């Protein structure tokens, strides 16, 4: 694929000016997400009232794909019910791993389809998914999640390190 498909203006903009960046003093749910292979490391915090996501924030250190994905995720799920957000988590994962083609299949992904191209870059799929993975962990009050090992609900084959 052409990188222009992935590094679109909207992705570069969210990377430069991430929305909902920071921490939440009154958070009810939090999780830390780590991709040990590339060093992406983010924290997602939520304030949930009666199943409604009232506030959401994220911070951390990551590549542009991960940061833009997190920024667009927070903008998207804010004001939604947890169940709606969980459905979006599933759709995003399916799109990033090529199980859902937003061009031909119905979804709630909207502008998030800019990330559809990562399915052709296996080494970058986890960058895009990490924020969603972390959001899911926060809903379930799992403090720390990782894109690797037993904690990898994606069932992606673990990429290995080399020199």
């Amino acid at each position, binding site marked *: 694929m052409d*990188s222009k498909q992935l590094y679109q203006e909207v992705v570069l903009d969210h990377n430069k000016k991430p929305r909902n960046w920071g921490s939440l003093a009154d958070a009810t749910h939090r999780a830390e997400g780590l991709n040990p*292979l*590339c060093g992406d490391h983010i924290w997602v915090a939520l304030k949930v009232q009666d199943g409604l996501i009232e506030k959401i924030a994220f911070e951390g*250190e990551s590549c*542009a794909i991960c940061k833009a994905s997190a920024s667009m995720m927070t903008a998207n799920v804010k004001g939604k019910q947890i169940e709606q957000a969980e459905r979006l988590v599933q759709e995003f994962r399916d799109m990033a791993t090529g199980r859902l083609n937003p061009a031909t299949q119905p979804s709630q992904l909207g502008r998030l389809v800019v990330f559809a191209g990562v399915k052709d870059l296996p080494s970058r799929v986890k960058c895009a998914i990490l924020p969603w993975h972390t959001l899911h962990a926060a809903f379930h009050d799992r403090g720390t999640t990782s894109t690797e090992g037993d904690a990898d609900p994606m069932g992606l084959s673990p990429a290995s390190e080399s020199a």
Partner: protein
Amino acid sequence: MNSAVLATVERSTGLDVARLRSDFPILRLKVNGNPLAYLDNAASSQMPQRVLDRLIRYQTQEHSNIHRAVHYLSETATAAYEGARSTIQRFINAREAREVIYTRGTTDAVNLVMQGFGRAFLGRGDEIILSQLEHHSNIVPWQMLRDEKGCTLRVVPCNDAGELLLDEYAALFNERTRLVAVTHVSNALGTVNPIKQMIAQAHARGVPVLVDGAQAVPHLAVDVQDLDCDFYCFSGHKMFGPTGIGILYGKAHWLEKMQPYQGGGDMILSVSFERTVYNSIPHKFEAGTPPIAAAIGLGAAVDYLTDIGMPRIAAWEHELLTYATEQVEALPGVRIVGTAQDKASVLSFTVAGVHPHDVGTLLNEDGVAVRTGHHCAQPVMQRFAIPATARASFAFYNTFQEVDQLVAGIRRVQEIFS
């Protein structure tokens, strides 16, 4: 770089790079419509046709199990396998071929010493000196030993250029120091450590030294007798040979005292249910059927390197690294990580405001293959307070044009992220 200057450099180093490149079929590949610029040699290098031909010849005309039968093929295979050992012995100037142990790679070689030397000779309170620049493969085995035996690990720090601080090194020794395990060339930064001096300092205190030479052997002439190291580890696939094969050089007197790493066939003289007598070195450490073809392929790679000449390779790569450093350094917003006086092959860098993984994905679009990440050297990244770098690493078959391709690619990354 213009062609006249290039010709001068080629003359001065005596290396006909265009001809050598034609030995490597994979270098003719195009990636994303661009000529492949393969700058990830520190992770793994490519194999020349001569090595590929040797593997085919072995498999089609010489293959059987070694050290077993009296038939023609077994004897041919054994001769080729042991012949490659002697070739490798001469390449690193080991005193005897039996000091050259085939392993799966550098990691396996370090683990062999941890198991056979560390577990046999180290105990509670004993100390091992490592350096800040180590690859995980020369850290984790020693941590496993520490946790099992109650040893202590001490770490030689480095300065902001990525050079080890030798005064601090000297100060780490005490009466409990039992081993120094240090890299010859840093895989993440390219620093060439003054290991001959470090070995002499350790020996003055009666402490043996293991050297991780994975990043040194493909780039420098290595003479284990001159270095006087006790152990020297390296990998075939980083020196234009196959994967799955590596070498542990060890001084015979250590190897003879050490415990075998694995038990099985070929490493024994006699076995009964009461008692087993181990084979002599090197066979004591080569249990089971080894990767015979890979060992012979490594021998062919060593012959290839010997024909070119390691001093010529080092001279060309020095010119290449100097040129790349100047060009990359001149880009605003690009920081070179690892600026030691003495470096080999590696150019690690960060681009302001752009994560290395984004740099790597975009360079790939231009056909430029670099490694991005922590390079299995997280303590190095921690020392420089960065999560990762992009790393270009050179071999003798790389060209100045490929450096230009890299630099143009970095410029494009900066434009996209501006």
